[in-house]
């Protein structure tokens, strides 16, 4: 990983695989906003970390996920290390849960926005249809954004913990998730240079590490078994022609 921050990893993927540009931007933006808001509410977050409550989840997550991808350990971050790598100007306070619950609506906004901005190149009724849809997404998205934020804020006020979003995930779970997302994106970027199955070895080892499998022997055996069996099934039996990487391995 060239950079320790998750949003950059997203950005890199977007450059490489421009297929889901809009989704990417949305995801990156979502992460960024949550990181921002979090730093803003650093104090509260610090208090929340030990409770493992959702308000604290997001903020330790962004940096920690990346560190664990580098170092391979998904431990629990102290609030201090969590903020060490980031300089963000606090704009207004808002807990992580609040910004995380806004992610789907923001994603929809970004996708619809990108589509609407690019609709100028199309002519005829084939342009009208997506424009109407885009506007509809913006409208419903706006309603959702407001209501999601209100619901999250209300849950926050009530100190209700998991509220509607984050589905009651523990801090550890969120860390694991972020770490594995980084692994997935790394595997995706390695597909072309390394070849399909070598990249899948990376993915499998990453997954096992995220599941807290620590014994090298178990990891090696499980990886060999999973990737080996898949190789036999897909390449030898189903004859799927995977392109080879620079090592000549498929």
């Amino acid at each position, binding site marked *: 990983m060239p950079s320790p921050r998750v949003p950059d990893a997203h950005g890199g*993927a977007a450059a490489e*695989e421009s*297929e889901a*540009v809009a*989704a*990417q931007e949305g995801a990156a933006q*979502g992460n960024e906003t949550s990181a921002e808001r979090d730093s803003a509410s650093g104090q509260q977050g610090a208090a929340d970390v030990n409770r493992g409550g959702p308000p604290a989840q997001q903020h330790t997550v962004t940096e920690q996920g990346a560190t664990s991808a580098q170092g391979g350990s998904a431990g629990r971050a102290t609030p201090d290390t969590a903020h060490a790598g980031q300089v963000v100007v606090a704009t207004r306070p808002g807990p992580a849960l609040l910004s*995380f619950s806004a*992610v*789907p*609506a923001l*994603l*929809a906004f970004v*996708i*619809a926005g990108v*589509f609407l901005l*690019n609709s100028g*190149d*199309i002519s*005829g009724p*084939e342009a009208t*249809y*997506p424009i109407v*849809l*885009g506007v509809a*997404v913006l409208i*419903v*998205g706006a*309603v*959702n954004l407001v209501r*999601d934020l209100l619901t999250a804020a*209300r849950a926050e006020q009530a100190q*209700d913990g998991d509220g509607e*979003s984050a*589905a009651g*995930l523990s801090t*550890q*779970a*969120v860390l694991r*998730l972020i770490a594995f*997302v980084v692994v*997935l*994106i790394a595997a*995706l970027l390695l597909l*072309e240079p390394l070849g*399909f199955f070598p990249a899948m070895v990376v*993915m*499998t080892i990453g*997954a*096992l590490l995220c*599941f*807290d499998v620590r014994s090298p022997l178990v990891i090696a055996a*499980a990886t060999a078994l*999973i*990737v080996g069996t*898949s190789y036999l099934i*897909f390449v030898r039996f*189903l004859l*799927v022609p995977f*392109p080879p990487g620079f090592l000549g391995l498929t």
Partner: protein
Amino acid sequence: MNLDIVSSGLDLLLQPESLLWLIGGLILGFVVGVLPGLSTSNTAALLLPFAIGLPTESSLILIVSIYAGAQFGGAVPAILVNVPGEAGSAVTALDGYQYTRRGEAALAIGIARMAAAIGGVVGGVVVLVLLGPLGELALSFGARELFVVILLGFVVASSLMGESVRKGLMVGLLGLLLATVGGGPTTGQERFTFGVLELYEGISFIPALVGLFAVSEMLILLARHRHGPTQVDVDTRSLRAELRAAWRGARETLRHKKTVGQANVVGVILGLIPGIGTSIASFISYSLAKRRSKTPEKFGKGTPEGVIASEACDSSAIGATMVPTLTLGIPGSATMAVVLASLYLQGIQPGPQVLVSHGAEAYAAILAVILASILIMPLGVLLASPMAMVTKVPSKYLVPAVLLACFAGAFAVRYSLFDVGVAIMFGLLGLLLRLNGYPVIPLVLGLVLGPLAEENLLRSLELGNYDIGYFFGSTTVLVLWALFAVAVVYLVRQSRRSKVKQVKQEETV
């Protein structure tokens, strides 16, 4: 009912190769049903890239047998360890797990098995009778009627999925919007491809599906993983004991004829409505059975009626979900969305014509549901112990293995690494949506129905010379609009009511 076409469907099904796919699919269905996180739609989407080469009837038979098998398979972990293997089995766990706590797990599985078998057969037979007339009705639909039907199915399905109308609607609209990527339907001009060659044919549907269903599910399994020993004791019995329990369970099921019948009716009716699928149906069936039971206080404490209400309904909905899928080209459930995708890939345009051009294959699939449901009895007894063992597969090995299969499948559709990226990105999108309580199925519906909706809209606009009045120009279409209006009014009222309830709950908190 046209007997000629049914009998040619039967001929197709009774080929040795078809029967092999049916049994293979059923066993595979048992396994994926048992494994939490691997659902029917996941598995069907995963297998799809490799099933393209099969004859149409074989791939259809394979998918519906997996569907039937998984519906029962999901009940096994629900009963044994209180972890539903399928969404619809969540209701089975309410009463089924109580049996296990009493040490009568085998009896509960026996009841579930019998109920699933009956439900599947009844649902299949009803569909066998209904498919012909409904198919003919659908054939009389022109472009404008089809457009309204798609609109109706889309709105109903999107709003019923997930916890609130607004969320489902937003995701569904997003799906429709994403479906416009690629060459335009009439002129073929590029839309939103951003110069990416791979996007010219649109966002590849199967990788997107694999991502939304399977990849996001695996990510959620990872998040939900509890560290430490989660060893569950699942006792395995001898075949003889298994047979005895199966017999007792079957008798117990047959004693509750009323509950079985009720559950079947609910399953068939709700299965016919596009997009509802099996999970919501079993909840409704359970609450209905509870309300109409003489002993409602026993529900949740391990009553056979609870297990039957859920399982019979689940299974009878399978056949019914095929009706909108085959007659209108609107998926009856997430799994049926995969069926539609497989039809597309084999060059068959889903819609009313399918029953005319591929009637035999369609009927073969429906007969396969019936046969697979019957086979649940012997195979389910034979495989009960191995199935219980599968519940022990730890998710730490399951997740990388399934993901590897996901990515290989995404690649194999058209040998494109780009599609692996599509699968991963849609997996992340699905994860973000699901963690925030947004359903992903409307997105799939939007992606499938989008091109169809746009094509029919543009065609009817052309036919009517861009006059809005054309959309109200026939009796059929007026009836459909009326249905649409009723559905919208109902949904709005429903969402108001749940909103009020929500606010009240929050106030009391």
